[in-house]
């Protein structure tokens, strides 16, 4: 029965960061990554760029064989974990192989959510979860002239953009507004009009009522009775933590695997990190925060805690952190970006320069920054993130911050670092 001191389920950002953190402290303990993938580690975030052809699957390897060998990290592919048994400190793979561990990290990410729409199961609906999905969608695109994208999260929007650029007639079904987790309605409008200006049909406020096969493609009937047909259908209506394998394990879950500030689960010697974990939200309570920078933070903390690194830090809480490049535009969102909580008195400074599609919103609370979003006006998101995390009092520089957020934030951070 194979054994690993540190057994990590998953092979993307959280898993790799944990392995790195473990090696920083423990040079010898065996580290094994179990992944259902057949490939070397890659990021789910890169998949839309595989679809568009911008990136090649072999060029986006996050850690190559040389790194694995040098770091003493074993990558076991084709090893989907289907069962976790904390009593015997073991996991079982789909092939029936049993691994034992001293310490276990669950970093299994999320799975696409398929909405319950009549007929959706009868058509070829593409999702974008794995490299194989991306390659299949890329290949399907080459023979298609039209496409329908369900959902306007980052994944759906990226794919829709790639399709529009490739000359497909694209329709995007948007239940509320695009990227609503990150951007306000006004910012969402700018993004939406950029898509419309590039030929995409943005069906805002609509949900699919039914889907049916039509020839090699499909037809989607909207909630208002309209029917649109296309060669391709892509479902990008979100992801939810992949944790079915935990059934009967005693590991506590809610929306995700519940983790404390060291990413420990309720079960001894079992940690959770990344998109599968439900951990502290910076704004209070717990949340699944399915973003790449959050996965990296989780992984670093989990790895350090697993290796008993005295330098481990508590997780300060997750928040929205994203950057978004679309057509000729770039956008940034840090902290409270989309819908603001009902409670709390926010000081909102929102500017739209519609002519140049320039946009900026600064949200403050009690003199502290809690949200920054901009379009076509760059301000370092890493710096803004620090100002929010540190609850830096911006009262003395508020006027300068509102006038020149980038320069003022950089100046502040430079002072704080010295």
């Amino acid at each position, binding site marked *: 029965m194979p054994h690993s001191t540190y057994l990590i389920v998953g092979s993307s950002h959280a898993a790799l960061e944990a392995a790195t953190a473990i090696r920083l402290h423990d040079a010898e303990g065996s580290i094994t990554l179990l992944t259902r993938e057949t490939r070397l580690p890659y990021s789910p975030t890169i998949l839309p760029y595989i679809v568009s052809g911008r*990136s090649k699957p072999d060029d986006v390897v996050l850690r190559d064989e040389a790194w694995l060998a040098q770091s003493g990290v074993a990558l076991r592919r084709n090893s989907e974990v289907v069962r976790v048994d904390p009593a015997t400190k073991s996991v079982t793979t789909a092939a029936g192989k049993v691994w034992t561990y001293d310490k276990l990290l669950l970093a299994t990410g999320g799975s696409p959510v398929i909405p319950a729409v009549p007929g959706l199961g009868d058509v070829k609906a593409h999702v974008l979860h794995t490299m194989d999905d991306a390659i299949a969608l890329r290949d399907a695109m080459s023979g298609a002239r039209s496409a329908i994208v369900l959902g306007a999260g980052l994944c759906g929007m990226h794919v829709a953009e790639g399709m529009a650029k490739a000359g497909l007639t694209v329709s995007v079904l948007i239940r509320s507004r695009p990227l609503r987790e990150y951007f306000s309605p006004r910012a969402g409008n700018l993004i939406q009009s950029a898509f419309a200006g590039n030929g995409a049909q943005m069906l805002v406020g609509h949900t699919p009522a039914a889907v049916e096969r039509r020839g090699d493609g499909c037809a989607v009937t909207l909630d208002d009775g309209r029917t649109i047909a296309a060669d391709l259908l892509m479902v990008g209506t979100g992801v939810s933590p992949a944790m079915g394998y935990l059934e009967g394990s005693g590991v506590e879950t809610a929306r995700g695997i519940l983790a404390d500030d060291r990413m420990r689960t309720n079960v001894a010697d079992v940690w959770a990190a990344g998109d599968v974990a439900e951990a502290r939200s910076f704004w209070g309570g717990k949340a699944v925060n399915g973003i790449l920078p959050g996965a990296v933070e989780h992984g670093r903390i989990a790895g350090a805690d697993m290796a008993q690194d005295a330098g481990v830090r508590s997780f300060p809480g997750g928040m929205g952190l994203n950057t978004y490049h679309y057509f000729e535009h770039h956008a940034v969102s840090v902290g409270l970006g989309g819908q603001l909580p009902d409670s709390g008195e926010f000081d909102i400074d929102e500017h739209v320069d519609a002519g140049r599609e320039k946009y900026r919103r600064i949200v403050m609370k009690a003199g502290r920054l809690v949200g920054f979003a901009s379009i076509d006006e760059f301000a*370092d998101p*890493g710096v803004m993130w620090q100002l929010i995390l540190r609850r830096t009092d911006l009262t003395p520089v508020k006027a300068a911050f509102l006038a020149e957020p980038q320069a003022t934030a*950089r*100046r502040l*951070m430079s002072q704080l670092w010295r």
Partner: protein
Amino acid sequence: MGLSFNTIQFHAERCDGCGDCMLACARAKSGGDDLAHSRIRILPGTGAADPFELALCRQCADPKCVTECPAAALAKNATTGTIDWDGDKCVDCLLCTVGCAYAGIAYNPATARVSKCDTCGGEPACVKACPHEALEWRTAAGIFNTAGDKEDLFVRGLAGCQGCNSELLIRHTLRRVGPECVVAAPPGCIPGMGTVGFNGITGSKVPIFHPLLTNTASMLAGIKRQYNRVGREVLMLALAGDGGTADAGFASLSGAAGRDEPMLFICVDNEGYMNTGMQASGVTPYGSWTSTTPVGESLHGERSEAKNLPVIMMNHNCSYVATASTGFMEDYYAKLDKAIAVAKTGMAYLHVYTPCPTGWRIPPENISEVCRMQVRTNFVVLWEYTPRTGLRLTHRVDKPRPVEEYLKLIGKYKHLSPEQVAHIQRTVDEKVANLQQMAHGARTVEYA
């Protein structure tokens, strides 16, 4: 041993915000004058008194921009230490900018891509362009890379006090000197930490002996002559404290210096007899608490001034005299290399200022900061002397910090009255003025 890398250092107090660095960067990276292409950003301070601030890639050892990249477009270069950006792999998602808290990798609107400093392949254009030496290309890392490859000629587990930098100093020194040497360690902290003994398991791995406080220099002079007689080139090295140098050891040292006896004599100056109960020595500064200069009703620490021993050594006209600090290792190494060369034929004297965590009452983690503050306040001046070149300062201190900032870091000065602090500031100013006069206005040469 992991590699260390050279880096760009920013001296905010020297910067006047002229922007030449940004222009030089933009030109180097784009061929034009559009500052959007500059990868270094100087930011004005928040007020007239505030220094300029900097946004520049720090080429982190554990780079977060790399871990945030989904496209494998960023990587730490194991040879150069820079974070390399691969424009072909980059998908312009900008996630790297989420990872960086220094604004070191940022969006360049002129190219619509991210850009970051690549140190111009080790010859940064910004550093060359700075008219005020506010940007410096620090090469201290090279020292650690080369020293790391050499055998450590002291054994593991010397019993120095926690935070004491003498161990750093003597390990570096002996690595550089190499095995062809004889070491004299007269009574003091250095033998006290267990350096004497050469069976390869305790002490050192080279011949080392424990002379009296009084006769270190004369014993080394005699041993050197014997080696000369048998035709073997062996370096004589003294690792002495300030007691074994300035007080009891001075007669033999002064004689040897007058005869320019070939040896490298290093005084590790911790301003007193710190190994035997913290008694004052001839180089204990005015105002210091020691066990023989206590603080009470009538006495407020040391009453007399420290003698300036390296200046006294200089006046012997021996081949090489220099002061040094472990807070400035490039400077120390440059001087050590000269001293090693000189010691084949004449006397090289290095006076290394060595704050003592135990005897001066400094938290161990603050020792390096105290070393730096000694120099930044001009309490310690870094210089070197040869009879041919005369005295030259080797470290620019443009806006010296008040000496009080140094004194307040140290417990042995905590009783000082404002009058005593003012007195120390005055003597520091006089000392610097005297040294500058001795330097005859010669340009400061910096070893970087």
